[in-house]
């Protein structure tokens, strides 16, 4: 990866608050990540850890009552805070595309899917109906949608969940964006369809060199499409690094727990235990490490205050008082 050029996407200490009846509650807490052209990056974490809000913040699509309180989002070296709304909109869909979690609710129910696939394109330049149709059908067949000529005229409710998700990916790909944000695009689908979609995504990204920021609660899924992953918990990044390394030797007890909670683990290694307890609710985060209350290795230092991020060797990093391995030394001990 070239590090001289400005990265495609840089998130720096992103903090997002949700306004509740009891005042603001932190949902995303100091998330930073860097993504270069061609990267495939995963964000993994339990539901409620702030993954979707992070993606929506990148698109400038935070829901009502949810605000970004600090941090920077930089696209190709340009801070989005300095962009006008028009410029920001020009970026959406063209430079960055997003695929949403639920293919049932993310397509306009009263509009045929063909026009929905290409309307991001037609918003930018004028296309005749014939061109739009050709382009939509081309995208649909590339997405492996059978019988695209007929499906062009279908309404979303006439299609299965898997086809709808392909339609959504097709419309996200319509403008050939350099970066695709995926918010658990396969969670609502059954396992075989999920597998097909994942293969398709990986293949498309490889062919066109599209970068991927892939959000999921499922480590196995992330490992299938991503080269490196970020583990998120309680709004904070807990660990990041290349997929294989994180799998082989997780640094954070939470990652270890996630691996243990995975359905299939290579046996004979460690005896892995599922994480006890439940993820903290919004606003019930402890002062120290958010995972401390559920961590079997927690000690006093974990609860004292905010835990600092530590960069480790091999492009890894962790936010833990006592990372799980001593084999990997911290790049610089910050304490």
């Amino acid at each position: 990866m070239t590090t001289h050029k400005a990265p495609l996407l840089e998130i720096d200490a992103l903090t997002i608050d949700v306004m509740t009846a009891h005042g603001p509650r932190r949902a995303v807490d100091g998330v930073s990540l860097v993504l270069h052209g061609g990267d495939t990056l995963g964000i993994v974490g339990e539901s409620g850890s702030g993954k979707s809000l992070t993606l929506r913040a990148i698109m400038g699509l935070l829901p009502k009552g949810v605000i970004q309180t600090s941090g920077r989002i930089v696209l190709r070296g340009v801070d989005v805070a300095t962009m006008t709304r028009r410029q920001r909109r020009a970026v959406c869909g063209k430079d960055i595309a997003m695929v949403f979690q639920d293919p049932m609710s993310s397509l306009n129910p009263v509009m045929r899917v063909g026009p929905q696939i290409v309307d991001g394109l037609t918003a930018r330049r004028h296309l005749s109906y014939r061109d739009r149709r050709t382009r939509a059908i081309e995208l649909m067949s590339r997405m492996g949608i059978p019988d695209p000529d007929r499906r062009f005229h279908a309404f979303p409710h006439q299609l299965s969940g898997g086809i709808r998700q392909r339609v959504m990916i097709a419309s996200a790909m319509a403008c050939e964006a350099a970066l695709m944000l995926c918010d658990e695009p396969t969670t609502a689908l059954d396992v075989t369809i999920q597998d097909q979609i994942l293969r398709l995504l990986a293949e498309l990204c490889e062919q066109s060199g599209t970068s991927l920021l892939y959000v999921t609660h499922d480590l196995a899924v992330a490992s299938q499409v991503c080269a490196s992953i970020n583990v998120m918990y309680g709004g904070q990044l807990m660990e990041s690094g290349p997929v294989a390394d994180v799998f082989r030797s997780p640094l954070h007890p939470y990652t270890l727990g996630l691996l243990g909670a995975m359905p299939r683990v290579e046996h004979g290694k460690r005896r892995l235990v599922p994480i006890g307890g439940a993820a903290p609710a919004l606003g019930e985060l402890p002062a120290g490490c958010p995972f401390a209350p559920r961590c079997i290795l927690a000690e006093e230092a974990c609860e004292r205050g905010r835990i600092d991020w530590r960069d480790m060797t091999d492009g890894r990093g962790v936010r833990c008082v006592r990372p799980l391995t001593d084999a990997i030394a911290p790049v610089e001990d910050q304490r």
Partner: protein
Amino acid sequence: MVRYIGRRLIALLPILFGITLVVFMLVHITPGDPARTYLGIHATDESLKALRHAWGLDQPIPLQYLIYLSGLVRGDLGQSLYYGTSVRSLIAGSLVPTLFLLLLSSLLAAFVSVILALIAATKPETLVDHTIRAIPTVGLAMPTFWVGTILILIFGVHFGILPVGGYGTDIKSHLESLILPSVAIAVAIVPVLVRSLRAALLEALNMDYVAFARAKGLRPSSVLIRYALRNASIPAVNILGVTIGFLVGQTLVIENVFALPGLGRLMIQAIFKRDFPVVQGIALVFAILTMIVFLLTDVACDLLDTRAA
């Protein structure tokens, strides 16, 4: 779709039958003697009796109803007691202004409501939004006849730019005469429509498909209209339908305020003259009109909501 409409029309027949019964009963329960009204207070008992006999009013009520029904089946609504012509031709002569008024006022109300709701929904909970929601509510609190009178005073009498009443003789004067009555009616229904449409728009704007449309970088106007409005219009069209149903009754008042020669005005005159065949006929037409509006509403909603088809 055609078969669906056909089925709906057939389903209307029993309702229609019920309506004829109710209308007939109402007219015959109402006190007042048509013969006495026609002949005046000095008429002799003999002449009254003869007239009642001629009109079939001396028959038992159930028999009168059967006679009325058998006429209906042949498309005969009876003879007007007062005008002496057939009720059908009287209604035919007054139907057009009423239909025109209904059409114009609902188009006007729908247009104004869509514009106001779009503005309110793009700036929710702002001063603009509150104003848009508050001002039409004032309209809701004012009776239609009063609004009509005020409009006549302002635009007809004071400025003299629009006719104070009547219907004119050509298309241009028809339209001019219908402006104020349509505004008066719109004032009554815009508040209801704006509120429901605004609520539906805000709901639609919160949906995932709107977020996805924005993520594609679509212009706010096209997100608003092609995504939010199309979905929001389904509940709003339903409400518009109910309101137009209610409007059919409002024409009674407004046509009299503006002296429009429509069904409503004919109906009021017929009531005063105890011209019961005309009253029956118009009530039936109003009922049919209302049912047609409801049917059209359902068809429109099905066309808008592709999932229901």
